[in-house]
């Protein structure tokens, strides 16, 4: 077999050492009636060349964004990714290592994770970040559970403007621990939560309130007001944020957030049909930090006084605390976090702001051009960043099919959110004026 180097002679030598006649004897302790007596029903092995061919054929059945121009976002974004990323993460020392249990031979992963934590803490304005979570949605679910543990309360307040899939994930995690959820409705005119219209909730029972910024519709919430409200009642303020938007927007730290989570796909990670990306998780305050889920890297010194890094605060974790651990997470998204860190480093202080600025400018340009089309309107008045909703009395799914034939991926129809005729567009710095103008022309022809 290709990846098994054992030769017949070597196998015999090993069997001799073991004093057995065949490998089969090593499985003697498995009850005979459950041993398989035939091959698994799987396709026969492919050679490397056949494998590549098979993958090429499968890939051809997909229309991918190397040839299709995308205006779709809703949690997965088509940003430019510097070439250098794939070369760095291709290094076997990063790619083929595991969790840095042996710190002395894992300084590469440990230091790069420490730097990742620093970068996330910096853009979110929080004291510390952990080494990563599975994705934004699970990071948020864990943040809600952590708030319940920290406040000893069992009610979580979610905004109805939270990404619908995130709502589902949070609900599943919380209902399994019998935590109640209350939802804040959004204002149909602004498209955001109205902090003055949040009655009907007994706030002193609330463990945390969550704000997604920008919200699912791409709009900017009045986050600070909701933060103040929950703090008055002794609960925690969680912000779920987009990391690109933080290049321009006030940091959650400045807005008084206690816990900040988000999805890091837009930081240099491939869309990959939805995964893997990473969830980031940051918090402030030493009490909360000790309740964080996931791995954390800290700085220390070796016996010669030289700076080095180790996994730390491990008593929170499952391998020590078992059923009392702050979370069950073990493997995380280390390589995706590395990608995010390389991305932020190579873009740097100025490049990062430029990406945010270009997203904003281009999204605005595209939105204005769409609004020139008769029959289309902007249903929400709150300011937006990279995404926005457009309304028109048309069948967007049907239009998207037609656009796809022309090489364009349109926005996401929002029928699933009870908003028939609404569609969510996303524009990143990767889009050009020419692409946008062509799209507008095509769309005019279809409406």
């Amino acid at each position, binding site marked *: 077999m290709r*990846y098994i180097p054992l030769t017949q002679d070597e196998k015999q030598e090993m069997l001799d050492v073991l004093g057995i006649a065949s490998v089969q004897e090593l499985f003697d302790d498995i009850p005979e009636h459950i041993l398989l007596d035939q091959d698994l029903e799987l396709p026969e092995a492919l050679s490397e060349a056949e494998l590549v061919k098979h993958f090429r054929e499968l890939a051809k059945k*997909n229309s991918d964004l190397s040839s299709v121009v995308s205006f779709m976002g809703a949690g997965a974004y088509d940003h430019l990714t510097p070439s250098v990323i794939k070369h760095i993460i291709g290094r076997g020392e990063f790619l083929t290592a595991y969790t840095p249990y*042996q710190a002395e031979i894992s300084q590469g992963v440990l230091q790069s994770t420490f730097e990742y934590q620093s970068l996330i803490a910096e853009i979110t304005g929080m004291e510390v970040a952990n080494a990563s979570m599975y994705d934004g949605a699970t990071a948020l679910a864990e943040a809600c559970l952590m708030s319940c543990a920290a406040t000893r309360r069992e009610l979580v307040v979610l905004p109805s403007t939270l990404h619908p899939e995130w709502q589902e994930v949070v609900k599943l995690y919380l209902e399994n621990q019998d935590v109640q959820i209350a939802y804040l409705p959004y204002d149909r005119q602004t498209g955001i939560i109205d902090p003055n219209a949040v009655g009907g909730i007994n706030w002193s029972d609330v463990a945390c309130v969550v704000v997604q910024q920008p919200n699912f519709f791409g709009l900017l919430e009045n986050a600070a007001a909701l933060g103040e409200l929950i703090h008055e009642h002794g609960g925690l303020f969680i912000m779920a944020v987009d990391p690109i938007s933080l290049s321009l927007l006030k940091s959650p730290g*400045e807005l008084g957030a206690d816990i900040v989570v988000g999805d890091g796909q837009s930081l240099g990670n491939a869309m990959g049909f939805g995964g893997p990306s990473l969830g980031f998780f940051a918090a402030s305050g030493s009490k909360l930090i000790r309740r964080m889920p996931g791995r954390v890297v800290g700085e220390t010194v070796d016996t010669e006084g030289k700076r080095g890094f180790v996994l730390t605060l491990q008593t929170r974790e499952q391998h020590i605390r078992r059923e009392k651990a702050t979370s*069950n997470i073990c493997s995380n998204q280390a*390589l995706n976090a590395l990608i995010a860190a390389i991305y932020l480093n190579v873009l*740097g202080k100025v490049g990062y702001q430029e990406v945010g600025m270009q997203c904003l400018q281009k999204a605005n340009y595209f939105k204005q051009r769409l609004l020139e089309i008769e029959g289309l309107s902007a249903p929400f008045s709150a300011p937006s960043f990279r995404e926005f909703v457009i309304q028109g009395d048309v069948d967007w799914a049907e239009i998207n099919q037609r656009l796809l034939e022309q090489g364009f991926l349109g926005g996401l129809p929002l029928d699933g959110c009870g908003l028939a005729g609404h569609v969510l567009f996303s524009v990143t710095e990767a889009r050009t004026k020419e692409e946008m103008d062509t799209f507008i022309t095509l769309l005019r022809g279809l409406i």
Partner: protein
Amino acid sequence: MATKKVVPLIIERSTPGRRGYRLPELDVPEIPLSQLIPEEHLRTEPAELPEVSELEVVRHYTQLSRLNHGVDVGFYPLGSCTMKYNPRVHEDVTSLPGFAALHPYQPESSVQGAMELMFNLSEYLAVISGLEATTLQPAAGAHGELAGLMVIKAFHAHNGESHRNEMLIPDSAHGTNPASSAMVGYKVIEVPSDDRGGVDVEALKKLVGPNTAGLMLTNPNTLGLFDENICTISQIVHDAGGLLYYDGANANAILGIVRPGDMGFDVVHYNLHKTFSTPHGGGGPGSGPISVSKELAPFLPGPIVQKEGDKYVFATPEHSIGRLKSFYGHFLVFAKAYAYILSHGPKGLREVSETAVLHANYMMRRLQDVYYLPVDRHCKHEFVLSGMWQRDMGVRTTDIAKRLLDYGYHAPTVYFPLIVDEAIMIEPTETEPKSTLDEFIEAMRAIAQEAKEYPENLTSAPHHTPVTRLDESRAARQPILRWQKP
């Protein structure tokens, strides 16, 4: 791994005004920022990111990478983690834009190839486990546990048995098992092990009852031993109305040899990053699909891919617990596992397990005269020794582990499972050449000798690594978890 120099933090390389990447010029008319976003939303200070050139970034990470061990660098016998070779062609085929550049919400008609891959992989995993249906959604093994336990809970609730709130877990189990149980609100009941290293069947009989939701088991277990009583165990649990959960972290021992479904398990999670050779990435991403029996299939998290005629569609099972993660799971990881299964085929997979088991037994037998072997029987793909003899010489298992680093190896998993004092858990995998196994055996033997003659060589190890032993107490007492602003 030579350099002894400290690599500066990248922020310490920062020079104001330096750029590492250029965007295309903005090609739409620029509107003043304040007209687009009201002041109260805007940052007053830019985030202090490093300002470095592309070359500096490349050098920084290259230097860091040289401080790190990986399967590509050397032997990595980290028990329970299956650090096998990660075929490079998998990286090539999964970075094709036809997979890497797909948006998860594209119309189904435009992603039929990706869905076909998911469908096929789901089927293959069901075949390998001997079960009925699969979801690929969970992000890692622990997430698979969460999914599987939620499915079990939903199944009991559906049958009007919500009172079943006890999860039985052997004392040898991995920490994620009890932690996942707690996350679904289960009470953890610890099951003792017997002196053959398996579940203590008599004790189990006493622990099951009307509140038993199920039993989580790793088989072969974390001692690397196959539980011979598995059929009795599953009978006991099923008779009590509970379900059996298979922690598939150790599936590298059983491919094509025995199927969890045939052992009586109702739910299985796989760690695609272990058994199916997707790279561990310094700690992730993993992927933790679960396969379940026919009775449990309607409860799986959705969406999952189904085939209707010659089309693939996303569907949500009838009584689905809901959604455990954004989108569909770690698609690019699935793709690598799929490639792995295809390049092995049924015979190749069986050979993987046979070889992994042969390697482990060979090493175990060649080391048991110098390290205490707590349970003397055939192991499966890994085995657990104890550093008890060395402890009497003033050397702890940590010291043995650290000394192995000097020899250029990653250490085995240590101090796990918890039921073995000074545990040393060795998993060689099938992809290592015999010469590597022999060299490692010699190193372990030399270290055992050193423990007798020069114990201080061990207690002060490692000596030849980029840093010497690090002060973990200091890191935990006054945590420094991010760089300080320059």
